[in-house]
């Protein structure tokens, strides 16, 4: 019965999003619990699951409406900014906080990453007068910087730009239109964030 609802109510886009989310959560569970199951690991798993869900929702919303969900993205940005500032003030001299496995959360590195990526995106928005890039993507760029940090920006950039390019080219060939073709960037940014986070874990 439930599978029937899934088949009838979900179209291909939703199925792809659900599949990718499930895959990333399974991979996350494997990465977090492969060594041992502790209360700290469970807490981190729940925190990251929540984050993955929010990011996937934002990606889905952008994919459907070509818009960034205002309140969700704003709350996420504020909470991440507060978290990074607090951690920076608490562990000022530290080179980073080892969260789990190989993942070291470095608030200073993250804030630098957010400023650099946010500035580049804002510059593109200002120069092109929002024709080349949407203002909403700047907010997600800040969130990206705060999540993955400066040191992982290049890997994230590769994943994001190449996946967006492949999707854009497929769409362009389908529509037979290259000029003024706009594609949602947020799903690919989220794909980049999830990939980078899962790789560094």
């Amino acid at each position, binding site marked *: 019965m439930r599978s029937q609802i899934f088949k009838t109510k979900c179209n291909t886009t939703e199925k792809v999003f659900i599949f990718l989310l499930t895959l990333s959560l399974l991979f996350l569970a494997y990465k977090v619990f492969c060594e041992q199951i502790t209360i700290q690991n469970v807490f981190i798993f729940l925190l990251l699951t929540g984050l993955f869900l929010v990011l996937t929702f934002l990606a889905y919303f952008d994919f459907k409406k*070509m818009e960034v969900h205002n309140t969700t993205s704003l709350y996420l940005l504020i909470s991440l900014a507060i978290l990074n500032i607090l951690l920076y003030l608490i562990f000022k001299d530290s080179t980073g906080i080892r969260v789990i496995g190989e993942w070291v959360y470095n608030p200073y590195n993250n804030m630098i990453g957010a400023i650099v990526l946010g500035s580049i995106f804002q510059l593109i928005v200002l120069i092109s007068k929002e024709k080349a*890039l949407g203002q909403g993507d700047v907010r997600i760029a800040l969130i990206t910087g705060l999540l993955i940090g400066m040191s992982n920006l290049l890997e994230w950039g590769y994943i994001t730009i190449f996946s967006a390019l492949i999707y854009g*080219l497929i769409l362009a060939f389908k529509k037979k239109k290259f000029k003024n073709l706009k594609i949602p960037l947020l799903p690919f940014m989220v794909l980049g964030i999830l990939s980078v986070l899962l790789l560094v874990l």
Partner: protein
Amino acid sequence: MKGYIALTTVLVILPLLLLAGINSLYKSTTTLIVAKMSYDYGILKSNSETCLEEAVYKIKRGSAYTGTFNLLGDSWSCTVTITNKDGFTGVKIIDILSSDENGTLYKTIKELNTNTDPFEISNI
């Protein structure tokens, strides 16, 4: 808030990203090469101490000893030349040239005074 990117922008960003990637790759490669050279140098320097010890040992066994000898290790070798210092009796000059299989060279010259007990060794 708008959340899109023009395909043209993606195409413009791509070469910039590739350039940044290539730059990063070159930097990493250079760092690796420098680190390897530094490591090799450290190992060779440590090995050349063995040659110095051998030279001092030879002089201790026979204080008149002068000449050249080679020491061969697994992946390194050194040539030690011992000469008397002109005008100074009992003072020897030890010239050590070490090299490894990667072509790293380490040259050091020491002065050994055998008139004192224990011997005094100093850099030139």
